[in-house]
């Protein structure tokens, strides 16, 4: 008997050790779905950040796909009306995923309101594996996760259930690509200052208007036959079938999951509000383009099941500025768009729901971070030369500003341009500088170098805090074509005609913006690689989260 007990104890100890090592290794090999991972950026922060929130402290939870993820900023809402919320939307979040995140979320919070973006009601399937895994892998092992994994496996192979519960079996071959980040992940800051919202400064103006979108949709609806004429191996075939080109039917499976979500909300005494973040895009190219027909269909569905619905595109008087509000031509919002959408939503919520507005000291700290990131984001989105330079002068005095011109920057600099440069401390008189090269370095509000020449000019130095070597080169109109702003061996200049500016945060060793204003032309157009600049923002944001946030 004693020996048997010894055996049992040994086996238990061995299994205990095994489990501990298993979970430790699993943690290391799990992909880190956050910056600098380019594929998913902050995916794993969304849920892990949620777990960090104080219990029962949130009033609103929002769900949905990337439309919601990029379209609603809880911090904007908090700043405006003091209501705490958390954006739990994830990329292509299908309704079953929403349901299980909601179940998980309700373990720690008792929100008054759940807001769900309805894009997922039009999904034809429940999405790719990664879409589920972003979420699954952020959840600790629990009954909910087991059910979630089971649901996941129903749509995959039978092995995916086990690999969803124990992702080590799925990612074991990542041993080849492990890096420092994988080992230091244990110590990373889990708090997510922006409460699930993904701030972005990517920017492509809207491609079409709401009216055009709906017209295309109507044209598509009129095509009710599928026609196919083929010549193959000398044989002619003709296939004509009844089939509509534009189908707006909501699949029963999606309704089923919506009702499950509704039931859960009612059981927990939570109000459910369906909404739609505007998406104005070609309906023939993007299935999630938000056409009016879809709106009517959802409206009807909501009436049927007695669910509140507020469509920001068709129900509100929202006048979104599609020239600047979108990150990709109308499909998703950028920071400008998110600020506006949140504002409209805020007005609606204040009017229709009794939400508690309360000062929260932790949130105030997060708000500080949010504002810091937002300020940089707004700088990166700024398109007006004078406003931009004024911002540099007023808000970026503690930063290092590198200026280099290409071909000519004086032609349409104008009085206001010369004035603003003067305010920055630049002494050069540009009134007779047509076709000249120009360089300037401003450190902590002081111009430490400026030079004007009728041929190529260069300057090199070392930054004050980060001790980075930098090298600047500018070319005149008739002398060479090279322009450089190199910091620590990396080129940052836009390298376009006009005034090229790089804003560098010396203390944090991060470039904040790289822009060129074409002061050679009258409009003083802005040139910016928004994808690259957005990466600067992400790096800055990531730095703040890891080093400075609570």
């Amino acid at each position, binding site marked *: 008997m004693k020996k048997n007990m010894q055996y049992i104890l040994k086996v238990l100890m061995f299994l205990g050790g095994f489990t501990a090592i298993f979970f430790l*290794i699993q943690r290391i*090999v799990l992909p880190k779905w956050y910056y600098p991972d380019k594929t998913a950026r902050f995916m794993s922060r969304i849920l892990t950040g949620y777990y960090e929130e104080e219990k029962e402290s949130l009033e609103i939870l929002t769900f949905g796909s990337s439309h919601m993820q990029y379209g609603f900023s809880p911090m904007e809402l908090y700043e405006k009306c003091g209501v705490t919320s958390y954006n739990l939307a994830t990329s292509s979040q299908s309704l079953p995923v929403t349901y299980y995140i909601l179940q998980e979320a309700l373990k720690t919070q008792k929100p008054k309101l759940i807001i769900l973006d309805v894009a997922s009601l039009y999904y034809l399937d429940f999405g790719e594996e990664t879409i589920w895994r972003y979420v699954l892998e952020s959840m600790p092992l629990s009954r909910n996760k087991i059910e979630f994994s089971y649901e996941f496996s129903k749509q995959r192979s039978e*092995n995916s259930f*086990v690999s969803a519960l124990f992702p080590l079996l799925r990612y*074991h*071959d990542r041993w080849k690509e492990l890096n420092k980040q994988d080992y230091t992940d244990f110590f990373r800051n889990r708090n997510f200052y922006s409460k699930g919202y993904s701030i972005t400064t990517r920017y492509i103006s809207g491609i079409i208007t709401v009216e055009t979108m709906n017209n295309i949709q109507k044209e598509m609806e009129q095509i009710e036959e599928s026609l196919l004429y083929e010549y193959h191996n000398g044989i002619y075939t003709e296939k004509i079938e009844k089939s509509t080109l534009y189908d707006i039917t909501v699949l029963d499976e999606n309704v089923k999951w919506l009702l499950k979500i509704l039931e859960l909300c009612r059981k927990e005494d939570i109000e459910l509000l369906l909404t739609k973040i505007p998406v104005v895009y070609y309906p023939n190219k993007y299935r999630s383009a938000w056409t009016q027909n879809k709106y009517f269909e959802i409206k009807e569905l909501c009436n049927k099941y007695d669910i509140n619905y507020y469509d920001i595109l068709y129900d509100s008087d929202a006048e979104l500025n599609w020239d600047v509000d979108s990150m990709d031509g109308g499909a998703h919002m950028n920071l400008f768009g998110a600020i506006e959408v949140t504002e409209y939503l805020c007005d609606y919520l204040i009017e229709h729901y009794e939400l508690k507005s309360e000062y929260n000291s932790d949130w105030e700290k997060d708000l500080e971070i949010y504002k810091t990131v937002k300020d940089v984001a707004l700088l990166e989105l700024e398109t007006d030369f004078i406003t931009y330079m004024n911002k540099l002068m007023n808000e970026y005095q503690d930063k290092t500003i590198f200026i280099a011109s290409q071909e000519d920057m004086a032609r349409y600099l104008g009085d206001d341009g010369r004035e603003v440069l003067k305010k920055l401390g630049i002494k050069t008189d540009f009134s007779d500088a047509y076709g000249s090269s120009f360089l300037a370095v401003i450190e902590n509000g002081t111009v430490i170098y400026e030079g004007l020449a009728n041929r190529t000019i260069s300057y090199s130095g070392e930054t004050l805090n980060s001790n980075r070597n930098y090298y600047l080169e500018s070319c005149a109109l008739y002398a060479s074509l090279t322009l450089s702003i190199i910091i620590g061996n990396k080129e940052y200049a836009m390298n376009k005609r006009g005034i090229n500016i790089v804003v560098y945060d010396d203390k944090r060793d991060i470039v904040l913006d790289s822009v060129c204003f074409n002061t050679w032309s009258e409009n003083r157009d802005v040139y910016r690689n928004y994808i690259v600049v957005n990466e600067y923002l992400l790096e800055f944001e990531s730095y703040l989260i890891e080093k400075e946030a609570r």
Partner: protein
Amino acid sequence: MGYIAFNSLKYIIFLVICILLYYSVSIKIRWIILLIASIIFYVFAGIKKLPFILLTSFIIWYASKRISGIYTQADAEIIRQELKGKEKVEFFRPYKRQCRNYFLFPALVLVVGMLIYCKFAGTLIEMFQAITGNGELTWQIIVPLGISYYTFSSVGYLLDVYWRKQKPINSYLKFALCVFYFPQIVQGPIVRYNRLIVQFEKENYFDFKNVCFGMQLMIYGYFKKMVIADRLGLFTAEVFGNIPQYQGLVFLIALIFSTFQIYMDFSGCMDIVRGTSQIFGIELDKNFDHPFFSKSIAEFWRRWHCTLGAWFKDYVYLPVATSAQVIRATKKVKEKRGAIVAKTFSTAVPLASVWFLTSIWHGTGWNYMIWGFYYGIIILSSAILEEEYKKIADFFKIDRTTQGYQKFQVVRTFALFTIGRLIVAPGNLNATMEVIRGMFSSFNLWIFWDGTLYQMGLDFKDYMVIFLGLWIVRKVSQLQEKNSVREMIAEKNILIRWIIYYVAIFTVILLGMYGNGYEASAFMYAQF
């Protein structure tokens, strides 16, 4: 694949349930748990396959019972009549003939007929269609799981009963367990039922050490199969799947890799099988005895797939060699052509029979025929020309007792086996010819440093894993030659022991080839 693969999670779960049930029921009925588990395991491969194995097991069991019954009757009569010597033999003869004509031959015809039908009907029909140029195969030929293995074992058992080497198993259910026993059904070893039944009938108490040792052997098997063999498989599949794209030394590397691959795959599987069985307290015969340490091809085949070799020796080689016809023919040859030719003849006939059957066992293509012929010739020539080889060695003053020469013999055996792989690994004779042509078309030494080798499914880290893995297996094999490695580990203190176990388990979990982007690969010998 159709069955619960040994390298799947399903198998681990299945096994855990079996172990828990096995040791939680009364010791007397533990074998019933194994029987039920084995039938369930078999049913997982497809319920349609079940009738074949049931029929085979019943035919063999019934025939053995009847043969034994007739023998018992004859024995009783012999005792009653107090017969001895020649009289006894003469009296016994008609009984034996009765057994042979009414039970042994019909049973063998049925059982072997089933094997031939299941294994070769498809090929024969395809050949027929190719010749006649029309017709479609209208029915599906079912190939029962492990048909070659259980048919060979069953035939061996029936012959043993017929030859009175063993007593029959009285209970059909216990006999069925021998046939169905799940660890050995897919890939062998080819078990001898007399050895197995004793173990099923003995009292299998829970033995902590046995269970631990079994698990350790399984993990080692998984290491060989999933970490080394399947990794090598990426390379060989790429090269032999795209022969026209490669040339020169790439083929040589692929052949060497394929040699290691088949060994790691097959012996790894055997470790899993024997480990599984050991957990239940059942020892299965070894199928591998470090064949790559062999100094000759004959020795190699004694140490590689040992149970198949032993089966052929007992049920083909010896019966053929000692058959009246061969003895008579040898005598005639001796009279006409002399002693040396007669010796060659008497060795060649049984050897040819064995290698002909070995070829068929491995495959029905011409490449397997040539492969069998290749080994037959090597073994025959080394047996017959032993004296001549010795003379040649003496002429060149080669000392065959030195360590260096023995190492050369080991390398030579490895090379000969690798050449054998060249005949079958590419898939068919045309492919083999293409590989040979490709191999001699270029002496591209630069592939070792120009990155070519990293474009075949393996990167630098994979090669490191392979070489380290092979080194570990070699070290373990060297230790195994002297001692039981598991016993050696068991003597260490608990900390070292557990570190070894954890490292082994997590090596398989982390470095094993499975899961996303990798289809669980079938064990190479499971097709037989």
